[in-house]
């Protein structure tokens, strides 16, 4: 309905919502609410009664119009959609239709549509050309309309009998259409409203007449009513009588005539009229001078926005000649502020006004208090400029904001007698009384915090790879400077809480920056007075470490909100870690117990925590503490969402997981680019430390069935590497690490080194460290050491003994290092060997089980569990739980030590194992059996059976074992008869026993005891 009356103002939507029947605006209330919008209100009051009928029918006509358009362009899909809507709209209008009869235009469209569809349907050629959607829509629509039209059959036939009339109407319709559209552009003028009013007054009379007529001729009444409905916005009811028709035509003509001269003049006239109205209204209202002026002004710039071509005047603040005093200015300020946050308030203009006000205040020497007050408000309205949280400040606004804050700070510093605080009440403000200290309400801290937020937002929303970002980043120095000033100010005047807050702000701007100056200073110890002046000036600034220490300690001591302290600690740790003070960082982290309760913190703090952990891990890596590095990074890397967890970008996820709203929130949490931690560096550090840990571990536990992975992600990368059908030279960082791992597995440290440290990797990763060379040397050393370990694990079974000198040559490590590494391995029982001091050799004990022995052990375990399960079945059958031989013979299996020949010899109690104290030297094999005999083919050397310290001396005991097991065998039989377990399993146990008898039991026992 509002189509014809749109003014494009805000009140329009409101009126259309409430505009069912009567739309008379409650003038008074509206006025209070929207003092700046006047003209529209005026017009709204003019809007009058529109019956429900009109509204419904207009809805229908609109729909019909779109359908006709769609028909013209053969868009059947659109037709279908609209037809469905039409059906619904008709359903809504049902009550009216019942009263008035089915509208003529409705019948017409139904009939036309059906004809049209049939025509399309017949047109085979056209149908073929039609696209799929349309064809589908056609068939559905055809069916639908057929069904639908059954209800209107009588109407349609009557319509079809009398098509000429409808043709007439068609013509009119077209006219009406064009008129409607032209109506739209001239809706502002009062003319249309006037005609409307006229029409309305006429309409009821027409209707009543029609009712009378209805009595007379039955057959035509339906058409009558339709006509009436059709021309709801039109003029009088059109009857089939020619006379009536003519009348209508003339009316139309007059309207067209009237419309023709409507030009700018008309508009101006309308404008004037409106203004007059506004004036009148104001008169009715209170007549305070300034208010009136303000309203006028508001009206003025509102109109500008509306697009009326008026020259923008400079807004005048006060009526000429008004004496400008504090009271007046304050009042004015309040007026301006009242509009704040209101719908339709032009925020830019408001800012301008305020700035003008400051100027006026300054010109009139109203004192600093007032200026400070207004400045506060200017900054606040600058922040308000953007309606929602997501958008960020425009650069010019941002610049203004910074300047403004700086000015404010200047004033505050210059006038120490001004007190600023948010807890100063509006009433207790003292803005001009120079005798007493000035008191102004407002919080500088909040402003600065808000500024910081805005800065973050700007950085978030700028493309980090553009020059623009750099430009913006230059402001960071300014931001820091402001924060520093505020900090100084608050240190003098603020409460501890405020100081804590500003300190935190300062910390947040410091913690992520690497202090190159301090680093330089560290590298070059002070040389007394030889330094140049410039250097001295450069070095003047406080060491960031000292600064952080001071600020954080203050917060630790004084802060009472947990959040600030948590943030401060995290930043402190981060800063320590960034500057490679690993132990301090670690201790602080451990002391804070943050790991325990960080999950209760809010997301930004959690992100900070993640960042800190990552930085800690990287720091540990730089120090060569691979294990710590791995542990610190494990959580964040294993999730595979490092990017998200660090707040450095959103992962592409399906929309089901998060809706638009959540995404917005997450976007707001992102860390600006200049704070990012390089993800590739992070992953590389993690993978390399995983490699240094995992490869020796894998080598040591080659045949261990229950070996666990240290790093799943690393294994995943290895597997990916293995799956590659064709292995080219590594390209990406991951491929480099995988290739290096493979080399390391073979103990080939040189290749490994060349894969980890080369041009590509330097460019990608290592050069990102502040002390890249140090890291590289550390890394080389680590690779050498771990390769040595891997080598020993993998190939110790091949050696009888190996000279340490050879090893130190191979791995380019000095002898003491090799010695210490091997000693450590021996102590940790990783390597079964002993050191021979005089010859500097490592003598292998060859006590590790061979592959076959390991397999046999595993098999024994599995058989044990199998038998246990089997026993349960047996229990079940018996009905008794805890079978009569449970755990007796099968414990034998699960503790391989028992199988050791000498303990099995009858009469020896099974507990008499040789004590552990004699290890490892004491357990050197007395007799070294068959390994590498001269006459055997070389292939036999690697043979598991032979290379083990195999001595076939316990021949007798083997036989004993065999005989002993026959007892078990019979036991087995009892169990197995029932559930088909093969007795022959037992026979394979023979074999086990033989192997296990070769197997040094004490080591195993040691394992069990551990």
């Amino acid at each position: 309905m509002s189509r014809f009356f749109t003014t494009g103002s805000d009140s329009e939507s409101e009126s259309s919502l409430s505009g069912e029947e009567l739309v008379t605006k409650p003038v008074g209330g509206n006025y209070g609410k929207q003092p700046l919008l006047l003209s529209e209100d005026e017009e709204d009051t003019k809007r009058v009664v529109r019956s429900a009928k009109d509204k419904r029918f207009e809805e229908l006509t609109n729909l019909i119009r779109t359908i006709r358009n769609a028909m013209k362009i053969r868009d059947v899909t659109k037709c279908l959609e609209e037809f469905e809507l039409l059906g619904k709209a008709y359903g809504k209008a049902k009550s009216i239709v019942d009263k008035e009869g089915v509208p003529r235009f409705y019948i017409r469209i139904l009939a036309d549509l059906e004809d049209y569809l049939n025509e399309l349907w017949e047109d085979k050629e056209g149908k073929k050309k039609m696209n799929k959607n349309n064809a589908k829509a056609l068939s559905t629509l055809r069916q639908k309309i057929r069904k639908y039209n059954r209800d209107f059959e009588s109407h349609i036939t009557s319509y079809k009998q009398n098509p000429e009339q409808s043709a007439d109407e068609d013509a009119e319709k077209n006219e009406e259409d064009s008129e409607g559209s032209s109506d739209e552009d001239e809706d502002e003028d009062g003319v249309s409203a006037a005609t409307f009013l006229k029409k309305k007054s006429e309409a009821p009379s027409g209707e009543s007449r029609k009712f009378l007529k209805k009595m007379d001729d039955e057959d035509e009444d339906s058409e009558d009513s339709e006509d009436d409905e059709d021309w709801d916005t039109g003029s009088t009811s059109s009857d089939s009588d020619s006379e009536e028709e003519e009348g209508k035509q003339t009316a139309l003509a007059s309207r067209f005539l009237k419309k023709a001269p409507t030009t700018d003049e008309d508009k101006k006239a309308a404008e004037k009229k409106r203004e007059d109205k506004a004036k009148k209204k104001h008169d009715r209202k209170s007549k305070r001078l300034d208010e009136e002026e303000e309203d006028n002004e508001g009206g003025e710039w509102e109109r500008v926005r509306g697009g009326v071509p008026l020259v923008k005047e400079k807004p005048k603040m006060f009526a000429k000649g008004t004496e400008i005093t504090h009271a007046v200015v304050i009042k004015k300020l309040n007026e301006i502020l009242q509009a704040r946050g209101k719908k339709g308030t032009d925020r830019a203009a408001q800012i301008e006004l305020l700035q003008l006000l400051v100027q006026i205040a300054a010109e009139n020497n109203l004192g600093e208090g007032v200026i400070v007050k207004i400045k506060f408000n200017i900054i606040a309205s600058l922040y308000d400029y953007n309606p929602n949280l997501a958008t960020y400040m425009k650069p010019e606004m941002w610049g203004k904001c910074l300047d403004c804050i700086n000015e404010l700070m200047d004033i505050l510093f210059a006038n120490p007698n001004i007190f600023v605080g948010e807890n100063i009440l509006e009433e207790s403000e003292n803005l001009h009384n120079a005798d007493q200290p000035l008191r102004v309400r407002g919080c500088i801290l909040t402003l600065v915090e808000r500024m910081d937020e805005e800065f973050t937002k700007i950085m978030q929303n700028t493309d980090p790879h553009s020059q623009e970002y750099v430009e913006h980043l230059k402001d960071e120095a300014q931001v820091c400077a402001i924060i520093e000033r505020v900090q100084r100010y608050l240190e003098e005047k603020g409460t501890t809480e405020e100081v804590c807050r500003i300190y935190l702000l300062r910390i947040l701007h410091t913690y992520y920056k690497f202090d190159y100056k301090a680093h330089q200073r560290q590298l070059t110890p002070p040389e007394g007075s030889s330094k140049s002046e410039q250097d001295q000036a450069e070095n003047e600034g406080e060491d960031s470490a000292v600064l952080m220490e001071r600020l954080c300690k203050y917060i630790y001591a004084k802060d009472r909100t947990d959040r600030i302290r948590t943030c401060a600690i995290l930043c402190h740790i981060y800063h320590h870690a960034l500057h490679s003070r690993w132990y301090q960082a670690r201790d602080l982290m451990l002391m804070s117990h943050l790991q325990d309760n960080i999950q209760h913190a809010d997301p930004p703090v959690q992100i900070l925590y993640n960042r800190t952990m990552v930085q800690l891990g990287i720091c540990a890596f730089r120090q060569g503490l691979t294990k710590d590095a791995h542990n610190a990074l494990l959580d964040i890397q294993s999730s595979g969402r490092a990017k998200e967890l660090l707040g450095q970008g959103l992962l592409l996820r399906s929309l089901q997981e998060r809706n638009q709203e959540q995404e917005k929130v997450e976007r707001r949490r992102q860390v600006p680019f200049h704070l990012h931690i390089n993800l590739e560096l992070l992953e590389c550090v993690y993978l390399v430390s995983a490699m240094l840990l995992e490869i020796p571990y894998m080598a040591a536990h080659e045949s261990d069935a229950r070996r666990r992975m240290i790093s799943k992600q690393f294994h995943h990368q290895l597997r990916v590497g293995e799956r590659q059908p064709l292995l080219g030279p590594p390209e990406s960082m991951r491929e480099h690490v995988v290739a290096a791992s493979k080399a390391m597995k073979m103990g080939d440290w040189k290749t490994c080194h060349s894969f980890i440290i080369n041009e590509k990797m330097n460019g990608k990763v290592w050069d990102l460290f502040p002390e890249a060379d140090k890291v590289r040397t550390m890394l080389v050393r680590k690779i050498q050491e771990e390769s040595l370990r891997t080598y020993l694990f993998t190939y110790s079974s091949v050696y009888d003994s190996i000279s340490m000198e050879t090893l130190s040559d191979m791995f380019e490590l000095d002898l003491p290092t090799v010695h210490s590494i091997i000693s450590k391995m021996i102590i940790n029982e990783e390597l079964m060997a002993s050191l021979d001091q005089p010859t500097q050799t490592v003598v292998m004990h060859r006590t590790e089980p061979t592959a076959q022995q390991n397999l046999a052990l595993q098999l024994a375990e599995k058989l044990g569990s199998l038998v246990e399960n089997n026993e349960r079945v047996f229990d079940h059958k018996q009905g008794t739980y805890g079978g009569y031989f449970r755990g007796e013979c099968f414990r034998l299996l699960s503790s391989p030590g028992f199988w050791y020949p000498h303990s099995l010899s009858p009469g020896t109690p099974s507990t008499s194992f040789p004590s552990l104290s004699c290890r490892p030297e004491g357990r050197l094999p007395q007799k070294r059996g068959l390994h590498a005999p001269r006459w055997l083919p070389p292939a036999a050397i690697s043979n598991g059976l032979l290379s083990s310290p195999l001595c076939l001396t316990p021949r007798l005991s083997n036989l004993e074992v065999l005989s002993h097991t026959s007892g078990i065998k019979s036991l087995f039989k009892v169990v197995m008869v029932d559930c088909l377990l093969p007795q022959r399993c037992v026979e394979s146990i023979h074999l086990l026993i033989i192997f296990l008898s070769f197997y040094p039991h004490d080591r195993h026992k040691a394992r069990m005891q551990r």
Partner: protein
Amino acid sequence: MMLTLMKAQYFLWGGLPTPWKKGTSTHRRGGTSLGGKGSRIRLDTERVKFTRDSWVVMETSQERDPSWRVQYQMEMMRSLRHVNIDHLHVGWYQSTYYGSFVTRALLDSQFSYQHAIEESVVLIYDPIKTAQGSLSLKAYRLTPKLMEVCKEKDFSPEALKKANITFEYMFEEVPIVIKNSHLINVLMWELEKKSAVADKHELLSLASSNHLGKNLQLLMDRVDEMSQDIVKYNTYMRNTSKQQQQKHQYQQRRQQENMQRQSRGEPPLPEEDLSKLFKPPQPPARMDSLLIAGQINTYCQNIKEFTAQNLGKLFMAQALQEYNN
């Protein structure tokens, strides 16, 4: 019943085009594409002394185009008839490593063969062992008992118990006699004379622990499966007994109530279908565990054989070393 292989013919028909060599998953495990070919065997039954040429078809689960195979088979038969050789399709063969042939697939196809032609056998051929120097060729048939069970298609525990079948009596081995023509024999003799001494000592090689390792690994896998199977069976047993208890309780309660009602002079509660209330749990098919058991049995036998041989070798080696020292 005895299976006589005519070696000449075996060699003659042994080689088939390579695509045929791709076969069951067991082939892949070994990594080589040795073996997997059709061959002609001669079947002698002891009683009726008839010999016929027979055609063994290779079965694979992932045959690309079965129609092609059938066609080929038919054509081959026709050709055989043309040259006036007895022809009958009496079985098929499978090549596996380490004797892992006791599978469901083998059981099913052997059953269908044996069902159609009573004398059908399956030849199990181990290409690895053969490559190592000892021809490994074994012929198996399903026992009549198993045939009965398979016909019934009922593998519930009760049915198996009733059939009194265990893993040991699933397959029966048919002894194989390989007969060569005299010409071949002569050739063999000649070849043997020419062969180098080193070849003969291959059997003494001690470096065969790989074989053992593989066997153990396979055995372990099977034992794992067996364990799982037993656990399954165990839960089934527990469930049934629990249900039995519940059923019993329910009946008792019913009875008590009915007694009370009777004493009060009311009519007893109507009988309800107990089997509807307590549906017996689905018994697990025991055939799989039977097969696994059979497989374990084969592995164990393999290991036993192998270790027995190798222990002998080891003792020999030691004795030799002592002697040398």
